[in-house]
């Protein structure tokens, strides 16, 4: 099944066309990378799919239901998760409190005005477990704003996963990371997205080729090519657009 599909997706900002007839198919369980030069529209595509913007034209389907125009919180409840290119955590809350928010959402605890949060032991335990899994348990009580860059990116990624989504959308998760940090991040991503479908925007080709089952290349808002990594590597049009950046 295609867990996610876009049909004839267009998007413009005040006359500036950013997305142009994007037809994307994401198969259930696959790891799909979206690559392309800066300004190609990758993050906009994410924004449209995850509900930040309503597309100017076209349709989006998730789990075979039409979700065009749905808002982020609706999509999250349906099983989508998203991380941001620029870390978007709760800066004044601790790592523990950040993850806990995801756990609360997953458990459907939203309008609870009747229990003391700190007394909800199951929530605390589950949060601590997640923290251990992403190697952030040592920074449990550190405010998110005080975390090192690598750790805050880990936090960012795990926020996307905290609601246990079926489809995980990661926007340049390794942006700004050193080689070592990147390696650790890739391992973490692979571990955390087991059994899930993942769509990742990336510039780092090492990451792309080590993670992706399929790659889609976006250029000037339109899909240039889509297929298995080997196909993309040898694709002439892609090479021209990227000017040989695909030397792995």
């Amino acid at each position: 099944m295609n867990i996610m599909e876009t049909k004839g997706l267009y998007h413009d900002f005040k006359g500036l066309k950013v997305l142009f007839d994007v037809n994307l198919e994401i198969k259930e369980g696959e790891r799909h990378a979206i690559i392309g030069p800066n300004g190609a529209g990758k993050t906009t595509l994410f924004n449209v799919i995850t509900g930040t913007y309503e597309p100017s034209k076209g349709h989006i389907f998730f789990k075979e239901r039409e979700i065009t125009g749905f808002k982020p919180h609706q999509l999250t409840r349906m099983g989508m998760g998203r991380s941001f290119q620029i870390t978007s955590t709760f800066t004044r809350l601790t790592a523990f409190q950040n993850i806990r928010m995801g756990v609360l959402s997953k458990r459907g605890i939203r309008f609870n005005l009747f229990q003391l949060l700190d007394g909800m032991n199951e929530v605390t335990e589950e949060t601590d477990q997640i923290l251990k899994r992403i190697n952030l348990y040592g920074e449990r009580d550190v405010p998110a704003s005080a975390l090192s860059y690598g750790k805050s990116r880990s936090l960012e990624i795990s926020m996307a996963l905290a609601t246990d989504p079926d489809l995980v959308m990661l926007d340049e998760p390794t942006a700004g990371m050193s080689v070592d940090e990147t390696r650790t991040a890739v391992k973490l991503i692979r571990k955390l997205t087991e059994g899930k479908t993942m769509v990742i925007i990336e510039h780092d080709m090492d990451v792309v080729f080590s993670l992706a089952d399929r790659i889609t290349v976006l250029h000037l808002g339109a899909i240039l090519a889509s297929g298995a990594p080997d196909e993309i590597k040898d694709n002439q049009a892609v090479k021209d657009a990227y000017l040989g950046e695909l030397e792995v």
Partner: protein
Amino acid sequence: MKQNLLNWIFLAAIVIIAAFIPMIFGIYYSNVIVLFSIFALYAVSYNLLLGYTGLLSFGHAMFFGGGAYATALALTHIPGFPLLLALLTGGLAAVFLALIVSPLLVRVSGTAFAMLTLAFGQLLYVICLKYREVTGGEDGVGGFPIPSLNIPGIVSIEMTDPLKYYYFALIVVLLSLFIMWFFTKTPFGQIVVSIRDNANRVDYLGFKVPHSKAIVFIVSGFFAGIAGALYAMLQDLVSTDGALTVYMSFFPIMMAFIGGIGSYFGPIYGAAILTIIDEVAAAYTEHFELVTGIIFILVVLFAPLGFAGFLNFVKIKWSARSSHQGTAEEVS
């Protein structure tokens, strides 16, 4: 958590002292304390919006004044209206107002939000001013009977006696403060704080942000309304210039900020500080609001964390622990 425990012990000590104040210092001071506690309640209710949700409202007087007017009008027109119901009327009138304005308010933020709240506050002011037949215009509503606290078969306590009203008001305020504190410690309270930090992420985590904001609005408004009701019954008079002016909307902002918006107890400190300043300044000048305004500016400039922040700073300096623990005091 230890910090909170200390705060509660401190508060308990204050409460016990407060219980004896009328005996020691006389009725004048006990009235000052009632006023202080009403304003403390008002300020804490406001801080649910500012400190906790990150919403800067310039129209909180609409809840305070609206509640005050509702209580006054109910007591004026309905003979034999019971005390507790009068109190509740204030809170519910504020809830009613909150329900009317929130559909619009939850969809805007930042400056537009501040302006809209200012506008709504002024709107209520003008309405109460113009509809003299109902609200008495500038003269307001006054001289209504203050009912006694009647527990059928057990006791009937005269609320026109300042001493009895003192204890009644204090108990209501303490109860309200506790309820609001509890509110901040629930899962919903955590959502609210997260909205302050990053509303977009909250949306992306699957929570409905506008609905959540509306609920905070209602809770905050309710307790401001209760404060207004207490105020109405204390003064036995509610007028537009006493309860609905822009200044009445700025007042909780100042109390909260001077006391420290980053802490639950901050606004209470702020109310205390301003009450003390009021009492001291009144001996020298009629224009204590001028003094208040200047102090407010100074606090914004030099001590934006307020008095609570100052206390926290002192605590950090005194303790040998790492500064990470400092954040436990913060609103979170």
